[in-house]
């Protein structure tokens, strides 16, 4: 038999897309559920998956994320990609006011550094102490007192806002004061590309939309000695927070909705040349939705990446800003890794030709050169 | 015409490792050396003869006085000269042979002797030829020239030292017991070298261990004054 060079890509592409469409929306044994209902169910049943897509796509829109998730057949990176491409076409109207996370109504609030903290420890919905048994949540014993909700009742909403653990440490001078002011230059990394060295604001933006798995692995490496880290979670908070804007034509602030966020405030090892100067240092993580794993990993990496700023030697991969920030984005990474599927026969042909030429004239340079080598 | 004019030169050591002990060595030294003249420095044992030569060569620091040396740019006070100036004086104006050759490992005898000439700007070949001639004149046979002098006898080493000192034709040559480890024949060669230096208008300042040598080559003697008891007791008042 003989091979035929593959040409006529247009037809093949069309057929390939048809195959996906048939899998997504089968025509013969059409399910009764309309697509928008499936999307709703996705958001309801796979909440954390939707959260992750929104975080890595850096677009808070549950419907769009669910639509993408479905279109991607549950491939979350593909879904992130779809949402990102959609995001690129959106106009920016206004910058929101800074989120007042400490004012939020936490669904979870945990401190590992202190037994009790302002606002109290609040366990909330977590897998942390569940047994990883299949069907575990189906067979939970009924609450002993059905009248009492399993979450801590909300305190009097009019109570003055709690100061955080970090503020208390700051008042005592035990932790560095927080910095990271926004400038026009580092306002939005998707509008103004960050260079190196990046500002902390640019770093945090990049980490917030970074691949969760990459952050997790890098953060883990700091705990195993690749980059010094002695972390304590001061506060891990998950909850809904108001998004507020101040339209110039109104001149006052209005709330346009609520989003779910997870924030991690991390305390890290001392720093400073003298006993008087020695303070704890900070690491910070903030993620869309409910994703404690990523918030913690981000806080660890934020701290590791501050090594040059704090006068530490950059030795481990997690401390290497250019390495971490250049490789943490899964849409970039998956594109370049997968582009190897594209035809490369022109460059490969030139490689073959080069190698054949080399082998045909071995070591020409050494033998033929006038200096006799 | 004076090549060297020394006035009121004083030198003491302060030994910090022995609790800041002050050890005076020279005091009120004053003499001149004229062109074509050989002056022998004499004095009792331990009177500072070697220290005087070293101070004049810039190897030791002085504490007082002047030592003016004639150069093409006029008289220059060695004791007030910067390290750069002293290095230039050593290159072109004054040469010094210590009692012992300080050898640089691995460097050939010929190279050691040629080095002053090359520092004066001669090319390698010319410097090598003159160095070889000087070594031969000092009875160091050619087969020794490529060898480093580390393995030579004391007398051979001293002759390498003298060859290096005389080869550059410096207007002032300072010699510290140049014949101490030489036999009679070689001492005679040194004597001849000194006489030739004098005849060519150069000045020689030397410490001789052998009184006969003083009689044969020195035009004058300078006796180093002994240190006053007073200064021994209270050197700070100098």
């Amino acid at each position, binding site marked *: *038999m*003989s*091979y035929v*060079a593959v*040409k*006529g*890509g*247009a037809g*093949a*592409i069309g057929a390939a897309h048809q195959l996906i469409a048939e899998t997504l929306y089968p025509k013969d044994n059409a399910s009764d559920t309309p697509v928008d209902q499936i999307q709703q169910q996705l958001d309801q049943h796979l909440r954390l998956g939707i959260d992750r897509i929104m975080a890595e796509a850096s677009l808070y829109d549950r419907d769009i994320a669910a639509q993408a998730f479905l279109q991607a057949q549950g491939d979350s990176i593909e879904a992130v*990609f*779809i949402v*990102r*491409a959609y*995001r*690129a*076409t959106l*106009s920016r109207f206004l910058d929101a006011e800074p989120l007042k996370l400490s004012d939020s109504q936490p669904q979870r609030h945990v401190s590992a550094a202190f037994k009790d903290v302002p606002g109290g420890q609040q366990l909330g919905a977590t897998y942390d102490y569940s047994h990883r048994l299949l069907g575990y949540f189906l067979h939970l014993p009924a609450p002993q007192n059905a009248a009492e909700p399993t979450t801590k009742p909300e305190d009097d909403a009019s109570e003055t806002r709690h100061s955080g653990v970090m503020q208390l440490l700051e008042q005592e001078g035990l932790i560095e004061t927080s910095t990271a002011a926004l400038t026009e230059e580092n306002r939005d990394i*998707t*509008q*103004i*590309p960050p*260079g*190196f*060295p990046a500002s902390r604001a640019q770093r945090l933006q990049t980490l917030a939309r970074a691949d969760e798995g990459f952050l997790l692995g890098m953060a883990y490496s700091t705990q195993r000695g690749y980059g010094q880290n002695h972390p304590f979670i001061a506060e891990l908070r998950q909850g809904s927070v108001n998004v507020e804007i101040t339209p110039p034509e109104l001149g006052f602030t209005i709330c346009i909705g609520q989003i779910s966020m997870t924030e991690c405030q991390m305390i890290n090892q001392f720093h400073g040349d003298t006993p008087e100067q020695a303070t704890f240092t900070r690491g910070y993580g903030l993620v869309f939705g409910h994703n404690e794993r990523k918030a913690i990993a981000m806080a660890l990496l934020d701290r590791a990446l501050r090594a040059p700023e704090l006068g530490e030697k950059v030795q481990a991969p997690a401390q290497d800003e*250019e390495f971490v920030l*250049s490789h943490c984005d899964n*849409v*970039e990474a*998956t*594109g*370049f*890794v*997968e*582009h190897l599927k*594209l*035809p*490369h*026969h*022109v*460059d490969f*042909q*030139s*490689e*073959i*030709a*080069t*190698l054949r*030429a*080399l082998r045909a*004239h*071995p*070591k*020409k*340079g*050494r*033998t*033929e050169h006038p200096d006799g080598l | 015409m004076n090549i060297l004019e020394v006035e009121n030169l004083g030198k003491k050591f302060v030994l910090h490792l022995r609790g800041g002990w002050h050890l005076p060595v020279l005091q009120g030294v004053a003499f001149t050396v004229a062109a074509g003249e050989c002056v022998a420095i004499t004095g009792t044992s331990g009177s500072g003869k070697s220290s005087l030569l070293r101070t004049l060569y810039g190897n030791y620091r002085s504490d007082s006085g002047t030592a003016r040396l004639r150069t093409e740019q006029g008289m220059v006070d060695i004791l007030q000269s910067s390290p750069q100036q002293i290095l230039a004086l050593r290159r072109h104006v004054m040469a010094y042979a210590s009692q012992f050759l300080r050898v640089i490992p691995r460097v050939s005898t010929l190279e050691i002797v040629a080095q002053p000439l090359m520092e004066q700007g001669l090319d390698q070949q010319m410097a090598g030829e003159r160095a070889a001639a000087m070594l031969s004149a000092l009875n160091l046979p050619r087969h020794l020239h490529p060898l480093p002098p580390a393995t030579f006898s004391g007398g051979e080493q001293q002759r390498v030292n003298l060859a290096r000192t005389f080869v550059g034709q410096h207007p002032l040559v300072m010699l510290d017991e140049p014949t101490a480890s030489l036999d009679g024949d070689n001492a005679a060669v040194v004597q001849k070298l000194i006489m030739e230096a004098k005849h060519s208008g150069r000045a020689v300042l030397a410490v001789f261990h052998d009184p006969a040598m003083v009689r044969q080559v020195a035009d004058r003697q300078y006796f180093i004054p002994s240190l006053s008891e007073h200064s021994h007791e209270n050197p700070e008042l100098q």
Partner: protein
Amino acid sequence: MDYNFAYLDEQSKRAIRRSLLKAVAIPGHQLPFASREMPLPYGWGTGGIQLTAAIIGKNDVLKVIDQGADDTTNAVSIRQFFARVTGVATTTKTVKASIIQTRHRIPETPLQEGQIMVYQVPMPEPLFKLEPRRTETRILHALGDYSLMYLQLYDHITRYGRVAIGYDFPVMVHDRYLMSPSPIPAFDVPKMHMSPALQIFGAGREKQLYAVPPYSRVVPLAFDDYPFAPLQAQAPCAICGSQHSYKDEIILDDKGTRQYICSDTDYCEQHRC
């Protein structure tokens, strides 16, 4: 869904054009730009697509090639994308195109004044294999210090007897900046030199763009006694018989019988009798 002309919003396109103007003013110098997520994957031509989107107008005629061919899958995909989001005319004929977006080839047909070549670039940094840190390579570019690259050529000659770079051959632009010509075969590099067309290069994932204005010097690195010597297949094209074009090597059967045909499909068609 309704998208803006050429997909990107006008502000984004204007920002890219502004960077392009600067790039044209500093030939061969890489400039960062706010690369947007495009509906095609990074590594598949998002840089080229954004550049094309930024410069394309209603009267343009667009040609898209990949590996020299108009009908390879990725070329088709990109051409369809622009047809959908701009409605401009597309062509496979090099002479008729006002914009040619390409991956890995320069057409055999000589380019003309007024044409714009848009190159898809995977790795804009020519030094990246020798020095992965962009912070460091940026300094080397600023200093014009390219001895690292010359070291590689030196090493190749010593080891292999010739410079063993078949594609993405490093070039000096206007005697100032070392530039990646994108992974075109070395065979194509001479076409860049003093080309009457404007050549622009986009790397979407790396968020860099650069340009070679018309009639610029583009000189591959070489030693005086080891001049630039690109390789090409010796056989003529099995279809059109061309001796001078760059060829694809086709494996015909299980015994490994080879055939060489033009990689530039448009050129091959023009030359068939």
